[in-house]
């Protein structure tokens, strides 16, 4: 257990020392600021008031989930696996007295921590930005829930990228394959809406089912989507680990 903790701290330390997370934080802040500015201009010039108040964080969430956050999940996960294998720095980690299962788990935990931190940062920034926008009401609890539950589909996506990073030989092919698969899944959801539930990316908007928090919630739908996502997470984790464990240096 102590070895897992040490490996996890090391992964977080590596993330902290890389410029990518600072770029992610800066771009998140800039995106929120641009979103707030657009909302303000629409309100000022067109008189549409539906964009203000606590609705703003919910307005920003799907846009950033599908673009910036997913993109940085790809960057981080590709770097953790394909990047380390191609630079051979993985040897440093693999020669420590830690089993490959713990190393794999520590990397996944670090990726999930990044996702959580990035979402929380966007939530806080968008809540602050919404203070300067015309308020149209809304629940802070819903905003928090929406951002929190969005960690789950992003974790499934991160594990898919990790699986791809262990299958491909270089960082470029891992990155390109991940982005293409993400776009393909999103495209197939539109072409075959009846089968969208089988693509985990369709769960990106499952936070909308928490909108009635405090009132009536569609527990059946939430449970079904939760099971679909945890199913994907289990499958991607198992496959990713199996390939990682068999890798030869």
């Amino acid at each position: 257990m102590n070895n897992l903790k040490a490996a996890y701290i090391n992964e977080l330390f590596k993330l902290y020392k890389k410029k990518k997370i600072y770029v992610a934080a800066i771009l998140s802040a800039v995106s929120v600021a641009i979103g707030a500015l657009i909302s303000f201009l629409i309100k000022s010039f067109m008189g549409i008031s539906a964009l203000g108040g606590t609705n703003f964080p919910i307005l920003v969430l799907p846009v950033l989930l599908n673009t910036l956050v997913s993109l940085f999940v790809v960057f981080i996960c590709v770097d953790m696996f394909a990047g380390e294998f191609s630079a051979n720095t993985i040897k440093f980690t693999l020669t420590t007295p830690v089993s490959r299962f713990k190393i794999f788990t520590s990397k996944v935990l670090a990726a999930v921590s990044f996702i959580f931190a990035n979402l929380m940062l966007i939530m806080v920034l968008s809540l602050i930005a919404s203070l300067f926008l015309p308020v149209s009401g809304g629940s802070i609890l819903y905003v928090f829930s929406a951002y929190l539950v969005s960690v789950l589909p992003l974790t499934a996506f991160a594990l898919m990228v990790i699986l791809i990073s262990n299958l491909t030989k270089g960082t470029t092919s891992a990155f390109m394959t991940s982005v293409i698969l993400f776009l393909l899944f999103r495209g197939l959801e539109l072409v075959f809406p009846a089968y969208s539930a089988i693509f985990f990316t369709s769960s990106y908007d499952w936070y909308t089912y928490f909108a009635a928090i405090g009132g009536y919630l569609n527990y059946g739908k939430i449970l079904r989507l939760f099971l679909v996502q945890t199913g994907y997470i289990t499958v991607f984790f198992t496959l990713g680990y199996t390939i990682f464990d068999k890798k030869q240096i």
Partner: protein
Amino acid sequence: MENAIVIKNLTKKYKNDRGVFDLNLTVEKGEIFGFLGPNGAGKTTAMKVMTGLSHADNGDVFLNGFSVRDDYEKATEKLGSIIETVTPYGYLTAMENMKMYARFYEGADEKRLEECLNLTGILKFKDEKVKNFSLGMKQRMGLALALVSNPEILILDEPLNGLDVEGMVEMRNLIVNLKNAYGTTFFISSHLIHDVELTCTKVGILYGGKLISTDTTENILKKYSSLENYYLSEVGTNE
């Protein structure tokens, strides 16, 4: 004497038919074992399996009595290694790399890390990023990392690579001093046969993936004028 390293029926075959075949070998605690062989003989392959970087097709390696395959964490608890090139994280400083390694070992505090960097002669560069290090400095860094755990076993693949003459002498002295002071067991591969002769207490020759000979340096030097002659004689009879 207790065994530090036991290799049992180790086989690891690559697609090009090269590798290691049915390797059986025992190294006792406190020995400095020199692993010799021509390029492509399978030395690095065997060492990768010994450190868990590769998996064997068949057989197993036991370090301090623990199986590398089944009990990796215990087997490698008191192990330090350098396999092929040393690849610390270039965007981190030498000390940051050391601290990452130290998290896995109790008692590996800053004083111990500085001691390891000092032993390998790179303490003055501890705050420099590793990406700016020369090959020799990286090699010294690799040895410093390998020493963090106060290892009972050190597996070193070509440890003298990239070192200047002064560095080679320092490395040789360090190996002998660690053996004498702490009874550290060494498993070393090197092309520099003169250094092996000066350092190693026992020698094994790997040829075509098979162990063709093992003997103590003392016995070898009784029969041959130099380790080089012994090596050429053993390899020559197997060609």
